[in-house]
């Protein structure tokens, strides 16, 4: 992918995706919590298909393109589930081994006709996909899913790719939202969006619904998760960059004791600490994406890169948002000021797909001792 393509994508995403606080507030607590029209527009722009081969209606680009878009959407606080559907669910499908399903679903994902979620975590969360608590059972010759999965985003997808433990290992299945036996319990997130607790009772599956067989499922799932983790980190980067810029503007203009508060050295030095966290996030995210794009990158190296970036991004975003709030004082705590929107999104994204602590722990278990 050329630098020009990347630049074009970034510019188009930046132009199209600007913060519309009224829209973000309006969509909070609604079902599905985002706009179908906007989603289709995103499809028209090609964003939803950046990771989908041209043969399936996508642009056939790579992670570099996906994080470029994710960063811009993070800036604009888009409630549309880009990382969840266009990266996480899409990649799980793409790296599965069901050509027919790819043929059917990928073009619809690329165009924005449908939204997909990935159900892989058990009721307690956690980073290990082998710990999923949905099981594949044989009952009277029919195969069925039993169990539950939590933190599924978006809550209101058209269908879910569900990780299930089968006798031979992990499988992935495509389950429509309307599938009999599937109950979807939305849980409110801090930013007004919802994730779902899905319960499966004798939900029928078959070779047709099988996105990935045990031969492919685990690898596809891990690849999709690492990529989505980096895409989420890019959203966090965009978000923290805007939060810092907004705070610097405030420091430059808000006057107390007859001087702009940004002239007070204690605040200046703390603003520098925010800036450093943001720049460290940028550097490590860039390095992680490069390392994942390297064809020689192993699955373990990819996991290290993803955990390294997400640990920093989650930590940095929360630190920056908290300081931004403190520096804004009372005004920042009100809902009508946009800062709170960034703050609440930071809470959601930093917890999603593993918080800083979880990724630090995964990093510790994978990285070599110095």
């Amino acid at each position, binding site marked *: 992918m050329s630098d020009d393509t990347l630049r074009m994508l970034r510019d188009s995403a930046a132009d199209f995706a600007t913060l519309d606080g009224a829209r973000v507030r309006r969509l909070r607590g609604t079902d599905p919590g985002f706009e179908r029209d906007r989603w289709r527009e995103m499809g028209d722009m090609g964003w939803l298909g950046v990771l989908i081969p041209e043969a399936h209606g996508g642009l056939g680009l790579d992670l570099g393109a996906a994080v470029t878009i994710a960063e811009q959407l993070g800036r604009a606080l888009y409630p549309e589930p880009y990382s969840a559907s266009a990266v996480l669910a899409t990649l799980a499908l793409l790296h599965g081994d069901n050509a027919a399903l790819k043929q059917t679903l990928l073009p619809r994902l690329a165009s924005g006709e449908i939204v997909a979620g990935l159900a892989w975590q058990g009721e307690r*969360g956690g980073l290990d996909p082998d710990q999923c608590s949905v099981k594949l059972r044989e009952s009277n010759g029919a195969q069925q899913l039993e169990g539950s999965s939590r933190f599924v985003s978006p809550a209101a997808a058209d269908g879910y790719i569900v990780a299930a433990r089968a006798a031979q290992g992990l499988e992935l299945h495509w389950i429509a939202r309307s599938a009999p036996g599937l109950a979807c319990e939305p849980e409110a997130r801090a930013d007004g969006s919802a994730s779902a607790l899905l319960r499966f009772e004798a939900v029928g599956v078959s070779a047709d619904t099988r996105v990935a067989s045990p031969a492919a499922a685990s690898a596809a799932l891990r690849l999709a998760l690492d990529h989505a983790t980096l895409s989420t980190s890019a959203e966090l980067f965009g978000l923290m960059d805007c939060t810092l810029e907004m705070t610097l503007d405030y420091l430059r203009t808000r006057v*107390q004791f007859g001087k702009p508060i940004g002239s007070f050295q204690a605040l200046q030095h703390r603003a520098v600490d925010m800036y450093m966290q943001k720049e460290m996030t940028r550097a490590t995210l860039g390095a992680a994406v490069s390392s994942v794009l390297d064809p020689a990158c192993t699955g373990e190296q990819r996991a290290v890169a993803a955990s390294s970036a997400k640990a920093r991004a989650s930590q940095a975003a929360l630190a920056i948002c908290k300081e931004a709030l403190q520096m804004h004082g009372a005004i920042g*705590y*009100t809902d009508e000021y946009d800062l*709170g929107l960034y703050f609440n999104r930071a809470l959601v994204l930093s917890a999603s797909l593993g*918080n800083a*602590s979880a990724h630090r722990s995964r990093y510790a278990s994978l990285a070599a001792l110095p």
Partner: protein
Amino acid sequence: MNYGVPQEQDWDTLSDAAFRAVVRAEVEAHHPAELRYPPRRLRWAENKSWYLRMAAKGWIAPGWPREYGGMGLSASKLLIFLEEMERWGIARFQDHGILMVGPILMRFGTEAQRRRYLPPILACEEIWCQGYSEPNAGSDLANLRTEAKLDGDAFIINGQKTWTTLAHDSTHMIVLARTDKEAKKQSGISFLMLDLKTPGVTVRPIRDLAGHDEFCEVFFDNVRTPATNLVGKLNQGWTVAKSQLGFERIHIGSPKLPEYGLQVLLSVARARGVEHDALFRDRLAQLQLDVAHLGDIYAHFAAIVGRGEALGPEVSLLKIWATETFQRIADLIIETAGEFGGLTGKVQMADGRIEVLAPFYKARPTSIYGGSNEIQRNILARQVLNLPG
């Protein structure tokens, strides 16, 4: 005269232990269990039953002298009273009338003002809020812009207050307003009482980022308040207001919120099954030490108040330590909660429901209101450490 329920009991005749037993028995028998340790500030409709009961018993103003209708508790008994309330997780109501207006009128008010205003405060019929902060004068009262002009027998108030706790639950407000525009900084400000039903007053709740509306904006458009509602001398309002600031800082410095934070932290850790992990225990222990030591230094300052001495500027450290400890606890809650740290409201975790984000949200404004922690650090640097300006 009688300001409230006649105070027949002389609490000083009881030993401290006996007094504690009386308070504890009352609390445990009558305080509604569902109101213990609320995750947010309660509205008047939610906790009025309890406080009306306290008012009817004559227990609403434990610190006021008996001749004014209070319980007339000694400093040490007052601490016991407050400790028992905190121990049981009893939330404050909108108690500025009891905590600020009463003591201020006793010290600076006229006898007519006391007769007019103290009885309804004791009866919880009039609820007071505090109008100090403004959009451009949060931590810096020198920038106060709300104006009051004397016009015949009334002051005409124009301007805006913000960050006013529970104004929508209040009937009255104490307003700091500029009455001399030439005077600099804190001089030229007067202390006025205002009925919020007066024409020209608009109260607008502010939805905060946690989705609550405990704070309000209050707008004044040619609002008339009788000249007799001036407390203290004209232009000497800062003297009146600051007489209660030390109390406010020791109140914000109480270990109550951090202890509530530790409770939530432990619930979350138990639900996640990590409460015995070495990593969690080490970080918990550091926070437990921070809270225990807060208790030690709180006791030190409370003892000063107990001896009836004035609190020096050192008390600012109490506010900083309490609020930043609470924030560190809230951070560890989020971190321990994992994916649950993104969910709002009461969250099903293991076999209980926990409001995971409540301490995190609640902790944020504590370092902003009551004089931001930056202001408190400035005070300590200049007035205690004698660092140059």
